[in-house]
C-alpha cells in the first residue's frame, strides 16, 4: 500500500500547512486533471504512515505579494495559458483537507492520526481500490470516520459538503456496498455528533447512496 505513494511524479502537490485536525496541500499545477475534487479523498505520504484526508475546501488566490485581484483576460483557459504560461507560478491552488484516518502497519484506522503531516510531504489522489479498502471495516463498508469531518467543518458547510461527498462515494461503490455505508452512518454519527444534524445527513445519504 505504501509503495503506491512513493513516486514523486505522481504527487499532485505538497503539504503547505498542517495541524492535528487536517492539512492544506498546494498543488503543483492547477488543471482539473492534475488536482483533486472538492469532496474527494487524498492521501499524504508521511513516511511510516499514510494520512487519509477528505477535501473540504479548496481555493485559488494570487501568490502573496501580488495584486489581490487578477487582471481580466477575456480569453479561454487555453488562450490564457498560451499567453501567460507563467501564471501557474503566480497563483496558489490550495486544497484544505480534514484528516479522517491513517494507514500504518498494514491496517487502516478511523481516527485523527497522532502525527500530523509535515510541510512538504507529498500528497496524492488515491485509486478507487485504495478508497474502497479504506472504507472496508470489520463488519462491512463503513463511514465510521464521518464525525471527524463534521467536527472540523463549519456548521453551514456540513450539508452542502455532505451532498457532494456522498455523491462521490456513490460513484466508487456498488449498490450493495452503498447500502452498507448507509447502514453504518447513523451509528457513527450517533457516537460523536449532536443529534440535530443527523436527520439532514441521513436524508442526503439516502438520496445519494440508496436512491441514486
Amino acid at each position, binding site marked *: 500500500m505504501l509503495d503506491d505513494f512513493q513516486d514523486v511524479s505522481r504527487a499532485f502537490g505538497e503539504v503547505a500547512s498542517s495541524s492535528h485536525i487536517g492539512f492544506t496541500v498546494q498543488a503543483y499545477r492547477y488543471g482539473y486533471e492534475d488536482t483533486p475534487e472538492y469532496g474527494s479523498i487524498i492521501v499524504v505520504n508521511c513516511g511510516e504512515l499514510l494520512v487519509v484526508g477528505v477535501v473540504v475546501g479548496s481555493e485559488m488566490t494570487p501568490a502573496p505579494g501580488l495584486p489581490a485581484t487578477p487582471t481580466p483576460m477575456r480569453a479561454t483557459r487555453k488562450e490564457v495559458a498560451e499567453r501567460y504560461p507563467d501564471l501557474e507560478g503566480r497563483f496558489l491552488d490550495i486544497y484544505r483537507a480534514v484528516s479522517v484516518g491513517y494507514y500504518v502497519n498494514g491496517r487502516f484506522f478511523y481516527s485523527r492520526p497522532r502525527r500530523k503531516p509535515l510541510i512538504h510531504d507529498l500528497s496524492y489522489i488515491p485509486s478507487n481500490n485504495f478508497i474502497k479498502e479504506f472504507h472496508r471495516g470489520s463488519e462491512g463498508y463503513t463511514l465510521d470516520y464521518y464525525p471527524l469531518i463534521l467536527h472540523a467543518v463549519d456548521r453551514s458547510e456540513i450539508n452542502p459538503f455532505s451532498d457532494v461527498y456522498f455523491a462521490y462515494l456513490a460513484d466508487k461503490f456498488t449498490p450493495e456496498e452503498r447500502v452498507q455505508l*448507509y447502514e*453504518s452512518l447513523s451509528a457513527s454519527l450517533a457516537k460523536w455528533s449532536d*443529534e440535530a444534524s443527523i*436527520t439532514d445527513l*441521513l436524508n442526503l445519504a439516502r438520496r445519494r447512496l*440508496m436512491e441514486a
Partner: protein
Amino acid sequence: MKQTFARIVGGSLGAGLKAQLLRGFSPEKVRASSVVAMEGGEAKFLGVISDIRLQSGSEIARSLVRQEEEGNAPMSSAIVKSASKLKAQGSFTSELDVIPLAISRGDEVEIADTLPDYISFVRSPTEEDVQTFYGLPDGKKLWPIGALKSPVVGGSQSSLVPVNIDVLARGSFGIYGKSGSGKTFLGNILASYIILANYTGELQKKIKLLIFDMHSEYGLKVKDHLGRDYEDGVGLAFKEEFIRYTPDHLLADESGLEPFTISASRITVSDLFAMADALGLTPTFLDILPAVVRVLNDTLPGKRWIDIFCNYGVDKEADTRVREALKSLGAGALQSFLAARNRLERLTQMDFIDWVGEEDSSKVVVDEVLKRGKSVILSFGRYGDNRAAYMLVANIVSRRLWDGCIRMIMQRQPIDYRVIILLEEAHKFLSPSVYYMTPFGDIARELRKRGVILCVIDQRPSEISEEVRAMLWNTFVMWLTEDSDVEVASKGLPFPKLFRPVIENLRRQEVLVFGEAVTIPAVVKAQDYKDTISRLKKVYREVCVKRRGDAASLQGY
C-alpha cells in the same frame, strides 16, 4: 440466578431512582411494576420499577424513520440494521424509574431510608433476597400471597412472599381492583388461609368470617373471566367451616344453601336511608321520611309503617286516611310519599322478606359468628345484582352484629373470636354520604379492639369514606385505572406518588400488597387459584386428620 440488567445512574429518595439498562439489554425484556434487587456498596436494596422509558436516541430514531417509505424493502432493511448498530453501541438507551422500598443491612430489614450508590447493579431478586426481605411462608401464620413479579420477561420467581394472617386479622384491610382483576380469587385465598391458620397458626383467638357474597363466588363456585364456573369458592372448599346462606330461596333449593329470611319488622328507617340510592328515593323524600313514618304510625297504629310504605296489605280505606294525614306535612309530601311507595313496593317482591312472620335468619347468623363454631357466607344468588336487596340484607345483618357485640360488651361477655366481615361493593355502605348511616362505619370505628374488623372489597376505593380508609391496616391493590382510585389506593405506601404508575401497570392476578402483614410492600403475581385451593384442601385434610383426636379442644369445633 442473579440476572443483572441495569445500573443506578441517579435519583433521590423522594423522587425515586433512575437506572439505566445495560447496553444491549432490550427494554422489551423488562416489566414495569416488578420488584428488583439493588446491590449497593454496603447494603442490599429492594425496589419496584414504576416506569420504563426510552431515554436517549429519540432524535436519531426519528431521523431514521423519516428515511423510510412504505413498500421500500431495502430501505426498511437498512434502517433495521442501522438501528441494530445503534443499539449495540449504546446510542439508544433506556431508563427505569425505581421506587426504593427497603434496605437490608446485614440481618436488619427496614423501609428504605437511603439510596444505593451510583452504578449499583439492578437485578432480579433471588430466593435469598425474598427470604431476607420478606421471610418465608411457614404454613402457620405466614401464608404465601404469591411470587414477586419478576422484572425480566421469561424470568420467574419460585420463592413466595408470605402474608402474616394473624397480623392481617388485627385490623381492617382492603382489597381494591377493577372488575376482572382477581379480587374474588384473592379474597377466597385469604379466606382459605384464615381458615387454615385457625388450625395451624397457634392463634390466640380464632378468626371467623362473615362474608357478604354478592356474586355467590365465595359460597359456591368462583367464576373465570368469562363467567364460567372455575373452581370451588372457600365456602365449598372448606364446607365444614361454613354455614352458607342465601336470600335467593330458589338457589337454596338447588344448591343446598340455607335460606336466609328477614322479617319485615326488622327493616328500619336507617335501612331506607342506606338503600335510598339503590331504591331511587329522592332527597326530598328522605328529608320528610322520619316525619312520614311518624304520621303513618299515628294514622294507622296497628300497621307497620313499612307495610304502608311498601303498600303491603293496605286497603283502600287505610290508604285514604294515610293520604289525608300526609297532607298535614305540606304540599308535595303526599306526592313524594306516593313516588317513594312505587319504588318501595319492589321490596314486596323479595322473597327473603317475611311480611307475615317474624322469622329472622340474621340473629342466627350473628349468633353463629359470635358464639358458635362456624363462619358464615351470605351468597346472594339472583339478588346479587339487586343493590337494594344486597344493601338491605347487609345492613340488617351488620346492625344485628353491632347490637350483638355491644350487648356482649355491656354484659362484659368476652367475644371469643376475631371476626372479619368481607364486604363486597363496600363503597355502597361506606361512602361519605352513607357511611354514618350504616352499621359498618360503627363496626370499623368501634369494634376493632374487640376483634371485629372489615375487609372492604371494592373497585372504586375513592368512593369509600376517607375515615374508613384511614382505618385500614393492610391493603391489597390490584389493577385500577381511575386517577382518583389510584391516588387513594396508593396512600399508606412510602412515596405514594411514585407508586401510581405501578398500580396502573398491574395486570390480572398481580397484587401490590402493603401494610402491617407484610414486612415491606411487594408486587406479587398471585398463585394459580385452582392449584392453590387444591393444595389448601389437601393441607386442610391433613390437618383435620391430625386434629381429629383433639377436635373438642378447638374452640367451636
